């Protein structure tokens, strides 16, 4: 879409001003992220660029906010909780979600529309409503587990948050895995069965490797949903299940500390890594299924 040599002056002006406008919108999109990263190295406890920083004076920069993150027990507890809750919730949503997606992609499924609507609903219902419903449900479930099953309070707290997060991650797994299964060539499973493979062997040796990219990217979505979730954990969890987003939320609402910016930077780096992984997986999946990478 280059500019043709015969373009008039007006067209030229429009062409370049349009590019500038788009550039500004792209800047708007990435500005917050770009601003946060350098600010997290601020040697002061301010949320703005100090004169030293603008002069690129090394004295204006420091790693003290990162140090605080890695030494402050509050942040460490939050990090630990996030790293416990998100992976377990992901495993639950991925294993149940993949099975169900395979079931849903069969040719004759009764009530398919209704089932699909129910499974996707955690993504549609506004989080505050899910959180409210879960708040009542999980507090009685927690009481029951503590009094009837006699489980430890802290353990029950984790179970509640993990179950809640697992549900929230399920729609993402369903959507990505069913999308992968759409392009799945059914004759491959028939061929495997023809050669004497049982359903389990067929699943693990034929189907699984082919849909694996979809499963992994669904899992990444589920992971990021849990890792980034704050509304439900605020309502369902208690202070000992405080996750990273929760700690950030409290920090933003009450005493805002520059450590938040250091955490934010770390999270941005993680999301860049995840984004790259998903993109690579998508290309691999399309190559495996014989579609042109797009």
């Amino acid at each position: 879409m280059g500019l043709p040599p015969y373009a008039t002056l007006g067209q030229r002006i429009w062409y370049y001003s349009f590019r500038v406008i788009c550039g500004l919108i792209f800047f708007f999109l990435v500005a917050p992220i770009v601003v946060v990263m350098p600010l997290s190295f601020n040697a002061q406890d301010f949320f703005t660029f100090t004169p030293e920083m603008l002069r690129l004076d090394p004295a204006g920069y420091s790693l003290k906010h990162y140090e605080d993150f890695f030494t402050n027990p509050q942040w460490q507890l939050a990090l630990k909780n996030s790293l416990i809750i998100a992976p377990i919730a992901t495993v639950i949503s991925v294993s149940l979600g993949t099975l169900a997606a395979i079931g849903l992609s069969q040719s004759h499924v009764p009530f398919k529309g209704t089932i699909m609507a129910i499974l996707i609903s955690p993504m549609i219902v506004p989080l505050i409503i899910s959180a409210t419903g879960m708040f009542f449900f999980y507090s009685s479930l927690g009481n029951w587990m503590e009094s009837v099953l006699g489980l430890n309070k802290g353990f029950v707290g984790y179970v509640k948050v993990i179950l809640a997060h697992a549900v929230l991650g399920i729609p993402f797994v369903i959507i990505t895995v069913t999308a992968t299964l759409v392009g799945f060539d059914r004759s491959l499973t028939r061929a495997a069965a023809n050669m004497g493979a049982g359903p389990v062997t067929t699943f693990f040796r034929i189907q699984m490797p082919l849909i694996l990219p979809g499963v992994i990217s669904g899992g990444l979505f589920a992971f990021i949903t849990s890792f980034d979730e704050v509304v439900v954990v605020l309502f369902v969890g208690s202070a000992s299940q405080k996750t990273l987003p929760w700690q950030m939320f409290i920090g933003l609402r009450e005493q805002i500390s520059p450590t938040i910016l250091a955490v934010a930077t770390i999270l941005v780096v993680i999301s860049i890594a995840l984004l790259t992984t998903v993109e690579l997986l998508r290309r691999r999946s399309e190559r495996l299924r014989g579609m042109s990478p797009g």
Partner: protein
Amino acid sequence: MAETMLAADGTPLKRSLARALRRQKLRALMLIAPLLIFVLITFIVPIASMLFRSIENEIVQNTLPYTVQELASWDAATGEVPDEPVFEAMYFDMFIAAEAKRHTRLGTRLNYEQTGLSSLFRQSGRKLDDLGKDIQKPLEKLNGDWKDGETWYAIFNGTPADTALLATQRARVAALTDNPTEGDVNFAPRADIVQLLPKTARAYTAWAVFEATQKDRDPATRDPWEALPVALATDLQTADLSTYSGPGADLLRAAQSADLPTPDFTTAFVDMDEDWATIIPWQTIQTHSSTYTGGYFLNAVDAQKTPEGIAWQPDDKQILLKLFGRTIWMSLLITFSCIALGYPVAWLLANLPMRKANMLLILVLLPFWTSLLVRTSAWKVMLQQQGVINDVLVWIGLVDDANRLIMINNQFGTIVAMTHILLPFMILPMYSVMQTIQPSYLRAAKSLGATNWTAFWRVYFPQSVPGIGAGSILVFILAIGYYITPEIVGGTKGVFISNRIAYHISSSLNWGLAAALGSILLAAVLVLYWAYDKIVGIDNVKLG
């Protein structure tokens, strides 16, 4: 007639096929079942029970069962305060409620409808014992045995038992305390004493069930509440003891012939608080005594159920309707900003060569993948008065250092931050639609003499409308349910209905109202979502 086709094993082909199909269906359902059950139990049921809370109103019935019964025949329109039996029922209901510490909860509930009832219930609960002491003292003076829990137990316990009374009182205490009342209470009301002293037997049974199941104490040895002498004095006024010869017969006869003070429940309540002498508390209890209520939904739209019907709040108190209006208005503004900012970007992405477009797409996907909290905190940092944007503006000289712009804790902050957060949800559907528009159409239009603008407006734009529609519904749905971002950058003026729901859940504890607000929000989202499904199709939802 044609011969039936047979499968390899000899069964008719039709049946064999039907069986195979059935097996296939079953297998599919077996694969789906674990997840479906999981989602139903941990998600659908909690949401449904939350929605149920918006109409559930058992608390009045559960806390004041006999008062509600007595009040049913009272007509508030007469303007007269209810008769003595209502006050009497109220006294006994309140007494057990106060012992279970449930009267304040009812007061809080009724206070949503009528200001002042919360403190009325709380104070009355405290003064309830006064009446009991006025009668308990003379009774115990008459015979010291009345002080003893065992005396009472001997009078009321025994066989043949009135199991119906025991069962109703178990159910009543269970409803009042929200705790199970099964298990042994070591007490059964004797049928003849129930006949003779009905009110006392009822109060004693309720007390025994409460002591045994809630406090884990043996009613046989515990001293009963002050309400029991009151009940006894009431019963003894009419009871015919002449043929009674059971346990404690002499004690009871002596008490009846002695000149015990007659309990005057109306006066007792008016002494506790003058408000009981007005019809207001009674009217409120009567109006809101039904088990299900539309009251919370009325409250959610700034109306109220009054004895005269539905009444609207005065204009200056209509906060929730305003909040709904603001939520919709701001969500629309956010949607339009997203269209305005997203359209050029999507157009550029769709018209650049693949390689360049993919590079630029990363700039769209990066914020999409970045933690919501990170983006919100970034906006908080940038929009503050001492923040980056103000610094830059001051440095350029556009803004005086003394009056820096206030861009946070107001609607502006919410709109900017949420536009940024939701923009990728607009760009991605637009981009995928625009990719399918053939550039040759534009060229054809131009070669037929259209100006650039006409070609765009008459040829390109109509084809991109589905993308705008899909993106707009998606952004709007996400925007009206947002909680975190408005909470952090919205201050008081820039918050949404979600923030109000959260406030009622965690601070004001008006869960019924929170549920009603949530139901309205959910209904709105589901309608929009249905529209989205019709226009775009849920199967076309793409991630990343």
